[in-house]
């Protein structure tokens, strides 16, 4: 079976994808091929990073293997990217009567600037995306020409929401198009859906000015309207849209501050974490492979870390997320120690025994780099090691943010021993206890099994494989230790 495909539609879909990618880092699995469909794929302007830029970074840094990521803007040809409204998109189409158009879409919908998103208007999104598909859907060409080969079943999961603009409007059109295309071209498709139903109330930002108030594009009322319509739509059509699907949400609703039209920052929350996990199960899991229809309505509770199970260690036995988080803490400690050793410089000839395992010598040799350089300079392999390590730390900080933002609905209560406060992430003494033994001992036991000479000639691949093999060997060691303790 070819590698699965995760398609994130709109803001909620991208939140699901980000959570899925964070889980991939926490649990050391190679993620699926990724596609994001959103009109607004801007990278932000120096403030909080946008969801699009975060996904881009996750894909660029990569995992044990490089990750295929394809961003798609579901818009037909747009000439003027600054002023293009939905109305100006449709006006040139011959045969479209302005009055009919006005009857179908109200003024607010007609004036939606589609180049920056669909701003909570599913009907605008659906119509625009249909135009995009009619014009040949060049942005989706990779999906149809490369990612959906003939022969063998292909798992595809589409993630989105019922309450926004893009996800609500694009998902039904996309799934219908995908199914038709696969049926026509003889592809075996297993289509899964991770659908977020409305789970938060949208408040105004703190200390909002009257001017900013005007800029708020989506309100709780819009969310309610969209969700009500879409839930009814899904009730009738879900089984024809997806082979298997999960609905995710939370009641009572959480609170979220609107960030306006200018940016789409990430909003870490337990619902997103759960959505990422469901996406993992539909993409990689075997338990639900043969299930059909609506598989459930999921909502997070206070013990998510005990309820979500993913394969761990050399046995690949499913273990609770808490064990994976603990292993990630241990990994941060070990990777930091490795980075420190690189910073300390080459081993001195005065040592009475060889101070480092062959790993260091081999990694420097195969990456065509040298010791040192982690502080500021881009000396390999230390700089790439630092990048990978930073992604692991960022994942732990994300978990801390999930805890913080889920506090109001008590849907996620990681202990601080398991998930340290964001400001403490990266401090060696904070992570060291998760090693279940002295750092220097784990350092030797793990690194003696990591042999960069075996990972080929390409420096980037060698460092990438070395980093993730360290994680795998560490998991194996922790698994053995835990078995002995038990």
């Amino acid at each position, binding site marked *: 079976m070819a590698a699965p495909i995760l398609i994130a539609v709109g803001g909620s879909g991208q939140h699901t994808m980000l959570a899925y990618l964070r889980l991939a880092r926490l649990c050391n699995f190679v993620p699926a091929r990724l596609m994001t469909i959103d009109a607004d794929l801007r990278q932000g302007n120096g403030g909080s990073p946008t969801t699009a830029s975060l996904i881009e970074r996750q894909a660029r840094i990569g995992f044990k293997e490089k990750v295929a990521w394809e961003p798609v803007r579901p818009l037909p040809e747009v000439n003027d990217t600054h002023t293009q409204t939905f109305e100006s998109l449709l006006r040139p189409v011959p045969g479209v009567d302005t009055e009919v158009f006005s009857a179908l879409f109200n003024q607010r919908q007609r004036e939606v600037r589609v180049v920056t998103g669909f701003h909570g208007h599913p009907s605008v999104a659906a119509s625009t995306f249909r135009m995009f598909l009619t014009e040949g859907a060049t942005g989706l060409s990779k999906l149809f020409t490369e990612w959906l080969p003939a022969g063998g079943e292909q798992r595809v999961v589409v993630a989105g929401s019922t309450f926004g603009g893009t996800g609500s409007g694009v998902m039904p059109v996309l799934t219908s198009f995908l199914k038709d295309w696969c049926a026509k071209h003889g592809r075996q498709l297993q289509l899964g859906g991770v659908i977020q139903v409305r789970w938060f109330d949208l408040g105004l930002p703190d200390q909002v000015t009257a001017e900013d108030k005007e800029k708020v594009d989506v309100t709780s009322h819009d969310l309610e309207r969209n969700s009500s319509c879409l839930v009814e739509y899904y009730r009738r059509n879900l089984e024809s849209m997806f082979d298997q699907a999960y609905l995710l949400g939370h009641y009572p609703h959480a609170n979220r501050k609107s960030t306006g039209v200018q940016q789409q920052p990430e909003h870490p929350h337990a619902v997103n974490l759960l959505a990422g996990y469901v996406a993992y199960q539909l993409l990689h899991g075997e338990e639900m492979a043969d299930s059909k229809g609506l598989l459930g309505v999921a909502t997070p509770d206070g013990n998510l870390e005990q309820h979500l199970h993913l394969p761990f260690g050399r046995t690949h036995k499913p273990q609770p997320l808490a064990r994976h988080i603990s292993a990630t803490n241990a990994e941060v400690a070990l990777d930091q120690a490795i980075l420190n050793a690189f910073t300390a410089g080459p081993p001195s000839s005065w040592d009475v025994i060889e*101070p480092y395992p062959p790993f260091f010598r081999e990694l420097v040799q195969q990456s065509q780099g040298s010791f040192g350089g982690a502080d500021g300079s881009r000396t390999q392999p230390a700089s790439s090691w630092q990048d990978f390590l930073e992604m692991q730390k960022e994942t732990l900080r994300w978990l801390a943010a999930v805890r913080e933002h889920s506090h109001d609905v008590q849907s996620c209560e990681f202990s601080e021993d398991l998930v340290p406060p964001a400001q403490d992430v990266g401090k060696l003494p904070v992570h060291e206890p998760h090693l279940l033994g002295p750092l220097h001992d784990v350092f030797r036991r793990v690194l003696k099994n990591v042999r960069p000479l075996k990972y080929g000639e390409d420096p980037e691949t060698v460092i990438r494989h070395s980093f993730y093999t360290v994680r795998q060997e560490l998991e194996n060691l922790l698994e053995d230790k835990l078995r002995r303790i038990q």
Partner: protein
Amino acid sequence: MSRDTFWWLLFAAIVMVAMGLFIANQVHKANQRNALLDQGACEESAMVEAVRSYKTVVLGLAVLATVFGIAVSAALTRRLRPELYQGSRGTGRRFTIGLLVSIGTVFVAAAVLYLLDHSCLHAAVSPEGGLPASVAAGVASYVGGLVPNFWLASILEVLLLSLLSFILLSRVSRFLSGRVAGIGRT
């Protein structure tokens, strides 16, 4: 305690036991000589023999103490505390500690031996009735010709020998640990 620390400590303990047996054997021999001494005068040839014997024992101790110092240094190296925690090199400190342990051990052991030995050794180095200073220094040390004092010559020789021995054996240890799979590794 990790497995590799255990093995290094076991190694150091074996060296310590070897040193203990070596010293106990020398003390036993010294007691026998003392018993013989009670039966007759300490002649010049006996004095020379006592000094030569003492020198041989101390040189042997110097080599054993070097192995002990290397074991201590190696155990410290296994922990890699400065490298892993601070990103700085700890080599110089570990090397110095090993060397000081080595030299300190041989000096303490030599002093114990000297104090316990009541044979002609004490008479030989005594300013009155003993061997001439240059002779005692010459017999006690290979560098005694340059330093005509028993104590200075002995100290200088032990220092030189310990230093050379430590450097040489540490090179051998480094070579072996870097090439022979499994040595010192868990």
